[in-house]
């Protein structure tokens, strides 16, 4: 196995690191000190992060420094400014932010403060999915410790910078991970995504300039500030810089969350980290970045993991959550489960998404249960094409359409066989239990 430099998960491996004393002993809050006591201006921090090549880890991979630079000029816009940290982590397969929050909560607080300074936010709201009880409690405790140590609140570390950090809980809706759904939810409403424009930087939380960043994204900021943009930009590939967290789940021997530099191949993660496909089987298919990206075939496992290489294969890096499926997996079943998920999570504002996700779910369900109809494959394809790209208020509709189109493209023969034989030859035996309500 190749050796690579790690930094994102180093502290997380140290017992007791969730407490301030240990975090500080391991060098924590040095980056914040460098910013606030070293006289770095907000513009300098934005510039450093821009030059580092850091891209968002929430799924879209947008340049973080660029996003921060979209916030209006403080001198010209007197409105308060906010940073919302997206800790909703609900994309199927994705379980990386949880590791950071549980084991390195101060790293998230420090990263949030540096991001808040860069955009001159007066407050940070960390939006944690409601089910994440331990991660929530760990970060809340870290904020308290940090406040007592003058690291959060008025005049942080004796500087002119003041910033509050608050925890906020979601309540189990995937759509609240979409940045405008998140803002609605933070305002105490249903998580219905907002039409863009206006973009959050112009008008976000409470009609004020707002930046929404993923947990892992801001977690990177202290390392970049301390070690420099050039250090970060030297790791990775042409357009994907630094290390990233990869969650690997499904049919592997050692599922887990691993830290790797951009540029490793998927095979290195599968074999060296995850111990290969379980039960001595072969890899049939996989999602490189959560269920909202296009499926790839097992034969594509030598692809380099970065934004450009996955795009070239017709998929995307997404949340870097690799979901692996062995050669006995039924793709009809996989798509049934995934389509059911998007149907359940559609907020219903857009007809294409509301109706489309229901139809996809019904059709994959009947194919998987031996009741597929002759024209189902064509229907799936035309439905998915009507749902995306960019036809709806938010990208959930695309997220349902993209895996559908890839399944129809890559596994057409298998789906057709299920329809022709009126049974799924790869279906696992279904255990019996009573159900009330919907499926």
């Amino acid at each position: 196995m190749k050796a690579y430099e790690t930094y994102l998960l180093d502290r997380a491996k140290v017992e007791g690191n969730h407490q301030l004393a240990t975090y500080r002993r391991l060098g924590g809050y040095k980056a914040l000190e460098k910013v606030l006591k070293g006289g770095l201006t907000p513009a300098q921090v934005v510039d450093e992060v821009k030059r580092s090549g850091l891209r968002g880890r929430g799924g879209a991979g947008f340049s973080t420094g660029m996003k921060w630079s979209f916030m209006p000029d403080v001198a010209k816009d007197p409105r308060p400014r906010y940073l919302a940290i997206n800790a909703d982590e609900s994309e199927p397969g994705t379980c990386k932010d949880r590791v950071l929050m549980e084991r390195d909560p101060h790293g998230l607080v420090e990263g949030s403060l540096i991001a808040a300074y860069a955009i001159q936010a007066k407050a940070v709201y960390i939006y944690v999915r409601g089910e994440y009880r331990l991660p929530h409690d760990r970060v809340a405790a870290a904020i308290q410790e940090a406040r007592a140590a003058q690291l959060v609140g008025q005049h942080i570390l004796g500087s002119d910078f003041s910033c509050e950090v608050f925890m906020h809980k979601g309540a189990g809706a995937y759509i609240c991970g979409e940045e405008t759904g998140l803002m609605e939810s933070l305002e105490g409403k249903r998580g219905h995504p907002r039409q863009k424009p206006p973009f959050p930087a112009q008008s976000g939380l409470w009609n004020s300039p707002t930046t929404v960043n993923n947990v892992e994204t801001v977690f990177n900021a202290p390392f970049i500030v301390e070690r420099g943009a050039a250090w970060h930009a030297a790791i990775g590939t042409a357009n994907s810089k630094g290390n990233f967290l990869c969650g690997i789940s499904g049919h592997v021997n050692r599922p887990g969350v691993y830290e790797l530099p951009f540029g490793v191949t998927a095979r290195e993660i599968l074999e060296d980290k995850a111990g290969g496909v379980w039960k001595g089987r072969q890899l049939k298919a996989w999602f490189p970045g959560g269920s909202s990206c296009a499926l790839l075939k097992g034969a594509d496992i030598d692809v380099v993991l970065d934004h450009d290489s996955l795009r070239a294969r017709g998929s995307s890096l997404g949340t870097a959550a690799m979901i692996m499926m062995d050669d006995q997996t039924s793709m009809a079943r996989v798509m049934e489960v995934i389509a059911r998920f998007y149907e359940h999570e559609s907020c219903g504002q857009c007809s294409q998404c509301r109706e489309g996700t229901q139809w996809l779910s019904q059709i994959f369900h009947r194919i998987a249960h031996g009741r597929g109809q002759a024209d189902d494959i064509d229907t799936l394809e035309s439905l998915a094409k009507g749902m995306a790209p960019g036809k709806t208020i938010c990208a959930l509709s695309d997220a349902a359409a993209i895996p559908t189109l890839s399944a129809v493209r890559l596994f057409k023969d298998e789906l057709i066989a299920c329809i022709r034989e009126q049974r799924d030859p790869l279906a696992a035996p279904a255990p019996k239990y009573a159900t009330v309500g919907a499926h």
Partner: protein
Amino acid sequence: MALPKQLVDEFDELVKNYPERRAALIVALHRCQEELGGWISPQTMEDLGAYFGLEPVEVFGVASFYPMFHLRPVGKHVVSICHNISCDLRGAQDIIAKVCEVTGAPLGGTSKDGQWTVKHVECQGACANAPMLDLDGTYHEDLTPEKVAQLLGAVR
């Protein structure tokens, strides 16, 4: 009826975190569900409406949007089993069957003795430790049907 004083005091602090009081509504719903019998009753919606200056139907509109809020009474213990893809690939259906067998509750319902509510949920962010379930707010991961029987057997 009104909200218990202890919750009112808590919410009075909570609303200070936001420029608009209403922002605290979802966190307040969580606290009510935790403290007031495991579900959001019509009375609670009325009380929260009064506290936040909202119509009860607005509170209902919010509460009903979020799957974590129970709008009907639940059992003494709530078991939520993830049925999304990473868990499905590693046997979530067997976990659901085992939970239903041990508790006597149907999926999506409550056991006759009122002890258990069993439901399925979407991805819980525990995919690398699939399959998983949440028992009364605590995750249990890397499950097998045997482990489920042991876990639930130890609960009173």
